[in-house]
């Protein structure tokens, strides 16, 4: 079966985020970018499905500026077979991303679509669910285990208070949580091979999707800094402060 994986180019998770002085956004100039960590887990899961003989072909798709091709190549080096780049320099919000992915799903007809549960930049946690709704598919969100069984997929989900397993009819959408797997590193020979893999570029217009944003960002600020307090000498002083000063116990 064919698996489609969507990946997003975001700020590297190790980089300290700085808000621009004019409060228009986060400073991304000369900042290291990488594949969103939840998307890496999505790619890894698809590759493992292929290694188990469950998946036959892995197509990886990314939406964004030309530089996204770096992340598509990374996914190809990790084991994806073919790439699709939906190129645009405009900001693409979740609903519009889901509409673009729906158009790709209609072309490619995958049995399973795997996405990260959220991107570490906008933290929306929406695109997978929106794609599932728009394509009429079931969804296994925040997955910690994915087991394909014939024309069904059982997804164990990380929910408040524990784990919940659902059974979905294929085709279906899965979004990954942190504990689904530990992504591998790409080997040098595979990085070289990835450069020769097929990568098709298309535009939102080619896919017939209007990507005009519905949400406008009025300002972006640094969070209110929390001031450090005092050091206490021992447990007796701590308990005294909590009881008599902070009055929380």
């Amino acid at each position, binding site marked *: 079966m064919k698996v489609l994986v969507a990946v997003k180019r975001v700020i590297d998770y190790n980089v*300290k*985020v700085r*808000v621009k002085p004019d409060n228009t956004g*986060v400073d991304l100039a000369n900042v290291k970018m990488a594949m969103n960590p939840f998307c890496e887990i999505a790619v890894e899961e698809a590759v493992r499905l292929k290694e188990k003989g469950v998946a036959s072909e892995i197509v990886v798709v990314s939406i964004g500026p030309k530089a996204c091709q770096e992340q598509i190549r990374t996914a190809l080096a990790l084991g994806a077979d073919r790439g699709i780049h939906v190129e645009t320099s405009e900001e693409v919000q*979740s*609903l519009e991303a889901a509409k673009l992915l729906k158009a790709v799903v209609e072309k490619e007809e995958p049995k399973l679509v795997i996405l990260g549960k959220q991107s*570490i*930049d*906008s*933290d929306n*946690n*929406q*695109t997978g*669910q929106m*794609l*599932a*709704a728009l394509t*009429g*598919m*079931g*969804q*296994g*969100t925040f997955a*910690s285990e994915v087991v394909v069984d014939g024309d069904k997929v*059982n997804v164990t989900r*990380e*929910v*408040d*208070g*524990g*784990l*919940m*397993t*659902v*059974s*979905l009819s294929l085709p*279906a959408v899965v979004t990954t949580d942190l504990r689904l797997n530990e992504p591998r590193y790409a080997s040098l020979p595979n990085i070289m091979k990835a450069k020769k893999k097929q990568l098709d570029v298309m535009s939102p217009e080619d896919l017939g999707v209007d990507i005009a944003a*519905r*949400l*406008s960002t*009025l*300002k*972006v600020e*640094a*969070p209110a800094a*929390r001031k*450090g*307090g*005092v*050091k*206490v000498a*021992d*447990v007796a002083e*701590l*308990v005294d*402060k*909590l*009881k008599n000063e*902070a009055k929380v*116990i």
Partner: protein
Amino acid sequence: MSILVIAEHDNSELKQATLSVVAAAKAVGGDIDVLVAGENVSGVAEAAAKIEGVNKVLVADNAVYGHFLGENLGELVAEVGKGYGHIFAAAGTVGKDFMPRVAALLDVAQVSDIMRVESEDTFVRPIYAGNAIATVKSSDAIKVITVRPTAFDPVAAEGGSASVETLDVVKDAGLSTFVNEELAKSDRPDLASAGIVISGGRGMQNGENFKMLEQIADLLGAAVGASRAAVDAGFVPNDMQVGQTGKIVAPQLYIAVGISGAIQHLAGMSDSKVIVAINKDEEAPIFQVADYGLVGDLFQVIPELESSLKAL
């Protein structure tokens, strides 16, 4: 325009998060209706009718909603919500699952995890794991919003007398079925809404040592949490994780034990009213956000703390 709030519950009890979501809806202004969708939820509906400031409670009581499957709830809420100006739900794992489906079915954007309401179309939310705070404005006719419950003081659970109306809408998308669930059982308060939280990090060394924290928790009526490092090391289960990728908490008192204070963790607890840090490394970043810091070996400090608390 009126506002539809989707109640958070477990079919038997209304969750406190619902009261915070109603508080967020109140900040927008307008009539507030609450939708209770689930199976055998008459008790939850009664509780919802008593919430201060609620106009009407709508009840969709059917087995298809019993496990809160996103596909079924999505269709239900999209249909019921069509006539409203705003649809609000808590940003827990249920709300995060079905609300984007609602937004997509209504062809509107969703604003996730809001911390503040600026006006009826403008909301404040964290981005980049809480390292930046964005103010966003929606141009859609229906605003689909998930709310970070800890950011809003709950409205009173009693005092209202809303009418209760049963809906005859059964939406079974036929895409998913419930298989099973493993929910952690605990007599302690729920981590996300507890007034006091005590969390352990990698410094706890193993899962067995978390018993020390549990004993303190029982003395204080607190919930026990953990850092991602402690979860990843296998000390405790994932549902105890406090942080951007785990639970967001904002208790009156947060006690961080053997937690260094990675950004990821701070994003999940820095809205707590009073923070206590106990760590042997005096350079640990957690001390930069702590109101009271105690530098010391937790294996000495925690037993001492336990006996001091017992003596109170």
